[in-house]
């Protein structure tokens, strides 16, 4: 069951990663004209349309992470301690705290992306999106490294 939940957690994280990366690119580097290239189409999406999906994906990913976290503490953390990898453990500790900060950011983030987009919130909107993108990327990469670390160490 733990493995199934871990995989579903990872799949939600992948979807979240794609959505937040699209939105960040679109918010920070908006297309002024019709996009012709792959990069142009990547950042040429309608960023506001991603906001609610990102909130739902973030909350679902966080809930799944919270469900599997006790199993990690009981079964896996001890293994990492034996492998003497303090940096990996530290990165994971940061991941758990960053995830909570991301949850805290969601109400303000959702309000700033509310349609019609208010120009007075443009900078805050961009910054909050970047913060969420950073947290998502950090948590995704650290989750992968921790998940695979025993294999790397071997």
């Amino acid at each position, binding site marked *: 069951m733990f493995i199934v939940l871990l995989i579903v957690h990872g799949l939600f994280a992948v979807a979240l990663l794609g959505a937040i990366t699209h939105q960040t690119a679109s918010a920070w580097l908006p297309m002024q004209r019709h996009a012709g290239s792959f990069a142009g189409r990547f950042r040429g999406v309608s960023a506001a349309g991603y906001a609610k999906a990102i909130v739902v994906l973030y909350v679902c990913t966080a809930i799944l992470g919270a469900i599997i976290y006790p199993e990690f503490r*009981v079964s896996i953390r001890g293994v990492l301690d034996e492998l003497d990898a303090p940096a990996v453990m*530290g990165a994971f500790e940061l991941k758990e705290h960053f995830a*909570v*900060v991301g949850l805290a950011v*969601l*109400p303000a983030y959702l309000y*700033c992306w509310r349609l019609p987009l208010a120009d007075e919130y443009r900078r*805050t909107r961009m910054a909050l999106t970047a913060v969420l993108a950073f947290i998502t990327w950090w948590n995704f990469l650290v989750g992968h490294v921790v998940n695979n670390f025993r294999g790397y160490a071997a």
Partner: protein
Amino acid sequence: MIRPRSVGFVAIVFTVVYAVAYVIAVWKNVPVFTYHPITGAIGLGVEKPQGGPAMYWFGWMSTAAIAASAACLVAALVPERVARRLGSAWAWVVPVCVLLFFAYLLRGYFLR
């Protein structure tokens, strides 16, 4: 009835207070409860490990949620003219500072 502008104010207050309350809860170890994953037991406040690790993470989040909810109740009563004075930049400046503080707090893992 809360007006739309006030919803934004309350959302920013929630973000700021939750982030600050959470980092204080972690830093000073103030969880509402402790979860013992081996036994499935839950105890109020800080408890020592019982036959396995003790988890404070859920308790820290709950502490922050209580603080943020209380702040939101107060924020909902704040007059519109006062609410307008709060810049929306706080919604990202405070979380960024909290992220940096966590990196500082956990520096020991990376500097061994």
